[in-house]
């Protein structure tokens, strides 16, 4: 219970400061609470609560030795947790712990200023973990509140309503905003992402991996996370041609397909027909060394290389959003002249499994005149027999999973069909492999970008035909052509469609489109605003990139101009009210005297002024006195004749 005794001012002041410091620290730490080790947050919370109890219930504060001990323990604990005291995570954890310890000895304005500045710094550190729009939106009121906290901590009146400071803080921050924008746009950028300090921030990315097993792609169908976005320059190909190639899987172990051990180097000859497709991809982190391109890429980014399988490989794992331009031919084949050993590799199968499938393949091989016909046989089987395309295929068990799928369950997602098809082809002696990637994409009407989501993940097959090379065959299309032509939602039974809600309610879809376009714009223009974009922006403004003198002048002019604008607004708002005629005439009278070296001091009353004038120029005394008396009557007594005053002033020419 708080006693009813009036608290002395000092105590109230310190409580107020403590509360505001806690509010600011809390709001700044909150977004990264989940990124830090749980014990850091727990300890910080405990110390903060203890400090509150000390302020309101008289608990003792930690003494110097305890503080020192806890401080050292914080260093040790952070070191043991992160194996370093450096780096963003260890650094912020340490900062948060030491800031809460600082609460234990904070006293007076200076200490609380320091704490609030630390809170603001922790706020900046939030962007190390997360650079999305929601966090940016969160930080706006957070910075506002922290600024208000700075004002409240410094304000001597403890009874002042806290919201008054919010208003003042807004007035202070708003003029700062355009200055921040100017600096953001024009201040020279260092290469590399603004916030990239190499955090392991994308562990647990959902997306493709380097192998494929039954279930691994249907799992992705549940995620509507963006895999990448595409902007076509010129027209976009029809949906059925939107095969986004990621990896080619060669090896089958009886259960899953993988890329295999032998590195595939070299370049396989490409035969292309039709027009090139030019586009720019903004790839979300995929934790792979692969860039996704439209089947088949011809011109790829400089830092990437093309494998013989026409995969686009980069030297570093993609852990940050990456933008690149590609030229592809959608109607093309490669590897017509592939060597025998390369083809033979794609004929390998594990021994002694799936006897029925092998038997079926042998049967086709015996009857067929060409490999094309074997391919057709397989596709016809998928089409004619009761195979169904579903997200819930049931689990395949045991040694002979292909047999189980082909002759028993007959329910599968694209990985089942691609896998079984390639198995059948190899068993029939037709070189074949699995390709994984994405198929399709939705155009956002708001910004014209195509979004390809994880749910668009797909697996298909390529078979080698002597005269054409590797040819794409999509067995899923044989089962359910709608998957390729109209997308996943059209192909699946209605109850299984992921993101069903968005499709059932167009307005929800519209919200999603808007949000998507906003995120994309944020990525393209804010987060990706590095030297390259900046250079373009400079060019558009007619500035030379790298001319520091010019830049300094432009910055000086712009920021100076903004400050001048603020100044003008302030002047305008504090302008004196329009004066009535009597005042104007009196001012004119004063100006005339001022030209004669007898300026009225701003604080000088009219009679005092008249007296002073009369002393130094007795010849004007009578006139000045008459004008002054009438002015005083008009202005201060509400009496007198304004016309007469006007006449008197007009007649006065010293």
């Amino acid at each position: 219970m708080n006693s009813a005794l009036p608290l002395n001012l000092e105590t109230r002041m310190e409580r107020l400061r403590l509360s505001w410091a806690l509010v600011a620290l809390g709001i700044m730490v909150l977004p990264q609470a989940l990124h830090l080790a749980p014990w850091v947050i727990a300890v910080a919370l405990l110390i903060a609560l203890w400090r509150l109890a000390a302020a309101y219930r008289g608990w003792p504060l930690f003494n110097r030795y305890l503080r020192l001990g806890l401080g050292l323990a914080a260093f040790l604990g952070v070191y043991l947790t992160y194996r370093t005291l450096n780096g963003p995570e260890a650094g912020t954890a340490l900062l948060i712990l030491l800031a809460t310890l600082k609460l234990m000895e904070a006293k007076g304005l200076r200490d609380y200023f320091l704490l609030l500045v630390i809170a603001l710094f922790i706020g900046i550190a939030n962007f190390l973990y997360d650079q999305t729009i929601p966090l940016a939106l969160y930080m706006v009121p957070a910075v506002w509140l922290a600024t208000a906290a700075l004002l409240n901590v410094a304000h001597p009146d403890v009874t002042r309503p806290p919201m008054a400071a919010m208003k003042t803080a807004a007035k202070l921050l708003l003029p700062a905003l355009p200055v921040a924008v100017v600096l953001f746009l024009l201040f020279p950028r260092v290469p590399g992402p603004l916030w990239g300090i190499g955090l392991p921030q994308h562990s647990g990315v959902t997306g493709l991996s380097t192998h494929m097993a039954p279930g691994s792609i249907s799992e992705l169908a549940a995620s509507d996370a963006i895999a990448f976005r595409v902007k076509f320059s010129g027209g976009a190909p029809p949906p059925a041609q939107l095969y986004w190639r990621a990896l080619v899987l060669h090896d089958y172990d009886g259960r899953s397909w993988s890329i295999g051990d032998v590195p595939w180097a070299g370049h396989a000859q490409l035969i292309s027909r039709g027009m090139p497709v030019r586009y720019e991809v903004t790839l979300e982190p995929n934790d792979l060394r692969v860039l996704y391109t439209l089947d088949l890429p011809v011109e790829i980014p400089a830092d990437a290389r093309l494998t013989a399988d026409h995969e686009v490989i980069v030297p570093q794992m993609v852990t940050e959003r990456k933008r690149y331009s590609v030229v592809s031919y959608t109607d093309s084949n490669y590897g017509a002249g592939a060597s025998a050993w390369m083809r033979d590799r794609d004929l390998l199968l594990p021994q002694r499994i799936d006897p029925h499938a092998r038997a079926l393949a042998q049967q086709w091989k015996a009857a067929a005149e060409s490999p094309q016909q074997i391919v057709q046989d397989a596709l016809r089987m998928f089409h004619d027999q009761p195979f169904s395309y579903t997200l819930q295929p049931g689990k395949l068990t045991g040694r002979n999973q292909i047999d189980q799928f082909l002759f028993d369950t007959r329910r599968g997602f694209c990985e089942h069909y691609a896998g079984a098809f390639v198995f059948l082809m190899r068993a029939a002696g037709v070189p074949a492999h699995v390709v994984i990637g994405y198929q399709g994409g939705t155009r956002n009407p708001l910004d014209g970008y195509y979004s390809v989501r994880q749910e668009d993940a797909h697996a298909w097959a390529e078979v080698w035909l002597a005269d054409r090379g590797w040819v794409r065959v999509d067995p899923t299309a044989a089962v359910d052509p709608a998957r390729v032509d109209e997308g996943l939602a059209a192909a699946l039974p209605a109850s299984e469609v992921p993101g069903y809600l968005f499709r059932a309610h167009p307005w929800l879809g519209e919200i999603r489109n808007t949000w998507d376009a906003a995120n994309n714009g944020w990525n393209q223009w804010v987060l990706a605003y590095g030297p390259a974009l900046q250079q373009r922006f400079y060019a558009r403004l007619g500035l030379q990139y790298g001319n520091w003198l010019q830049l300094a002048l432009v910055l000086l002019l712009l920021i100076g101009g903004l400050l001048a604008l603020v100044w003008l607004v302030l002047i305008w708002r504090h302008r004196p009210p329009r004066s009535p005629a009597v005042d104007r005439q009196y001012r004119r009278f004063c100006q005339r005297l001022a030209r004669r070296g007898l300026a009225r001091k701003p604080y000088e009353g009219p009679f005092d002024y008249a007296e002073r004038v009369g002393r130094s120029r007795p010849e004007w005394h009578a006139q000045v006195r008459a004008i002054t008396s009438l002015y005083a009557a008009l202005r201060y007594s509400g009496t007198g004749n304004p016309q007469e005053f006007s006449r008197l002033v007009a007649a006065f020419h010293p």
Partner: protein
Amino acid sequence: MSHDRTAAARDLPANALVHKVNTIIAQANAIILGKEPQIRLGLVCLITGGHLLIEDIPGVGKTTLAQTLARLLGLSYQRIQFTSDLLPADIIGASIYEQQNSGFRFHPGPIFAQLILADEVNRATPKAQSALLEAMEERQVTVDGVTRPLPQPFFVIATQNPLHQVGTFPLPESQLDRFLMRLELGYPDERAEHDLLQGRDRRELLRDLQPVLSAHELLALRETALQVHVSEALLQYLQALVRHTRESPRYETGLSPRAAIALKHAAQAQALLMGHAGVVPEDLQTVLPGVVGHRLRTRSGRESAAPAAVAQQLLEAVPIP
């Protein structure tokens, strides 16, 4: 501010009363030489109905000024000399048991008069001081549960030695605020001092004084003063002054609304005495040092700047709108 402003003067119904006040000023001027501005301000304070604090070193005529005003105003008058052993009962009075009546009877103290001269208030203990200051504020006293009103009008003229003198209890700020004005007398100038040394004893002169104004007339004057026109322009000026004290970092605390009201009323009384139909900035400027001098403290921390200097700084910082 003694210049002629008859042009602004109007035929006030209270012209006769104002004339009497000018007589008072002239007579008082003959006794306390060279202190006309202070005498005028003292009268303005009394016409406004406020209490007056005169502060200066001993021997510059504080008591004489108070006595002169008391005599000329024709009010019932009591003088209380404050000492360190003064008790509240010595000021207010006490109920005393009377054998013949077999009961308590209230013996009123010296406070039951129209004009009280509280000499050297800061020599008494805070207990005695607060008895006086409470009476000043409430204009009534309560003894043994019975509340007794004080006479009308009721003025206190208190004198006080500067605080750094030995054996004094300085009045706290909240109590200083009860005084409408505080004046300083200061040393007389060369010529006044010469006349003073040559002339008769001041006390004898005092004895010869006759009341010029009655209590009734004083109350009428006060009413008249409240009628003096206060224009919007002047209110703006007054508010600008007050706002400046609140916003400028120079001052520890700004002027209170009570101080603002005091300023307005005092300026009205000053305008009345000057014969102005409405209050002009000069009226406000004249009364301002007396009204705000004891209410404003500069933040500089130095043993406070002279109140007159503080007031002058304030005036020069605020332009007349």
